[in-house]
């Protein structure tokens, strides 16, 4: 082994390479391809109005995926998001049924979601549990509590102004889509251009180095988990508004959808890399794929095959691109 070899630093990649070869560009290419293929197969997809209306079925998961992107970039994961949606929506529904009034009920829904996220954060930062397994535990727990308080009946009877937020539109854009876009811009700015955002990347890249650099890693993770719980509660309330009723099995299996959106967006599963732009594009990709399958009369259950396959392919390709970039 010669001495010069040890000093052989990796060559810097040319600028075009850095811009083009990244997971988000794969997402973008897939999205463009999906738009053309679906518009070619069915003229519906050439109509922006149709795509936007279809979006309302998946937008709750997209909103949660935006926040989960930050959690994953920080090196953690939250698998309890769908159970948090269900429990906070059920608490909201029961508070309303108990006659507490809508503003209070909504506050209870949002507050309980934040508390559930905070509890996840405590398990991860105070008890030092891996978030992967801790949030599986709370996923069972939150869904179980929802079943205890709501039973197997639907809770409904919400006032008219609350029901059907997906039918209210500004121009042709439904309100939930606007919420998604605004949150995407907001979180994109937080992650991309604030100190806090840089600290999230730093923590995900190397938590020990981050701690030595003076970043309060535990506090940062606590904030992210709480925000993830709160966002899940927002998703739960939006879904309650769309469906008009809440049940304990609301959004069952939603964690797959949310994780899939984040992974399709090219966020690195081991933390430290990923962008809101990727997640933003991934949601639209997923909407077109799923709506396309539904239009093509593929049963919802059979669609699971495609979603599972997509998830695995997404992490394989993102992994390969990041591994290539490091060399």
């Amino acid at each position: 082994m010669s001495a010069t070899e040890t000093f052989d630093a990796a060559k810097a990649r040319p600028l075009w390479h850095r811009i083009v070869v990244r997971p988000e560009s794969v997402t973008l290419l897939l999205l463009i391809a999906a738009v053309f293929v679906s518009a070619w197969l069915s003229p519906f997809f050439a109509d922006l109005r149709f795509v936007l209306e279809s979006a309302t079925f998946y937008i709750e998961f997209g909103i949660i995926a935006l926040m989960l992107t930050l959690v994953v970039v920080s090196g953690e994961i939250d698998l309890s998001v769908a159970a948090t949606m269900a429990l906070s929506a059920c608490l909201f529904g029961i508070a309303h049924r108990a006659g507490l009034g809508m503003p209070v009920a909504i506050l209870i829904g949002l507050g309980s979601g934040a508390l559930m996220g905070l509890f996840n954060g405590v398990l991860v930062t105070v008890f030092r549990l891996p978030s992967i397994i801790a949030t599986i535990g709370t996923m069972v727990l939150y869904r179980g509590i929802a079943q205890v308080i709501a039973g197997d009946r639907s809770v409904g009877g919400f006032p008219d102004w609350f029901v059907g937020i997906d039918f209210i539109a500004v121009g042709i854009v439904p309100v939930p889509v606007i919420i998604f876009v605004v949150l995407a811009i907001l979180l994109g700015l937080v992650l991309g251009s604030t100190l806090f955002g840089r600290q999230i990347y730093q923590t995900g890249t190397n938590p020990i180095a981050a701690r030595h650099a003076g970043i309060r890693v535990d506090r940062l993770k606590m904030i992210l988990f709480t925000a993830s719980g709160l966002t899940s509660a927002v998703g739960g309330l939006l879904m309650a508004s769309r469906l008009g009723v809440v049940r304990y099995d609301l959004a069952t299996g939603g964690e797959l959808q949310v994780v899939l959106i984040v992974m399709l967006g090219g966020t690195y599963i081991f933390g430290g890399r990923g962008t809101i732009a990727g997640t933003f594009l991934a949601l639209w990709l997923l909407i077109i794929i799923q709506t396309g399958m539904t239009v093509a009369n593929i049963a919802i259950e059979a669609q699971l095959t495609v979603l599972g396959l997509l998830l695995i392919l997404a992490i394989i390709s993102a992994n390969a691109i990041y591994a290539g970039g490091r060399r």
Partner: protein
Amino acid sequence: MTALGRLVRVREAGLVVMLVILAVVVGAIQPRFLTIATLDIILLAIPLILVAAMGQMMVIVARHVDLSIGSILGFASIAVGMMFRDIPEMPLWLGFILAIAIGAGLGLVNGLIIALFRLPAIIVTLGTLSLYRGLIFILSGGRQVDPNHIPEALIRMAQTSPIGVPWIVIIAFFTALLAYVFLRHLRLGREIYAAGSNPDAARLRGIRVNRVTLVVFSLSGAMAGLAGLMYAARFGYVNPGITGVGFELTVIAAVVIGGVSINGGIGTVPGVVLGVLLLGAVSVALPILGISGFWQDAIYGAIIVIALIVDGSVRAGGLVRLVTGRGG
């Protein structure tokens, strides 16, 4: 090593104490909980969980996790159930071999993706959970295998045997015995612990960690396949949308309660058997106490979270100091 042994023994003793407390408290409220009939019900409630937990514990000891076992269970049972329906003369033993083989095959796919691409098991098996479930619907066309198509001999296995205890209970405990011998006395079994405790060190000592990954996921799949046929025996039907849904969470709960560390390398078969018994006892105690079945998931969830916290504190040394009165 002795400190580790003590820790594990503490955990198993703790589980026995919890079982006794549960029996005493529930028995004091409802004396009929402490009868042989109840024991029969508990024994009949656990075989599927016990078998699958043996596979899952090996996966977790190897520092992975397998979320796809519920779908593997469903796939194996629907595939073999359809074969029984379409080929009535197919012998029962062939059904068992096929279920185990199908399960092992699906498990191997998990292992290959994880080992080949160095991906986290949890995300990969979350993907295959949904992938395999979708395949169940495609394979079965969404139709269930009805009770009249399940061989009677198979259903009888969930009811009797020459020695009185149903066959599926005997099979489950025999599987646990095999797992015990495998993990304790066989080279490959010990390698699972080595790979889970410290993969890098294991690799340096010549253990092929990737092979361990393939083995544990294949075994976990095989056990889920076996549990699939036991499901057909126990419930008498197989439904694409019901069979095995959420099963993985119950099994992971049992394994975690049984003292298997989620950080890998630690866990014993007796501990997991006790964990499964405890879950079974809780699920049987609820209706006897007149508590709605809606509580079951919440209680399971609370048990998982508490077991994880205990596990985390044990690792941090807090509990060891508490129990032994000395520094961990």
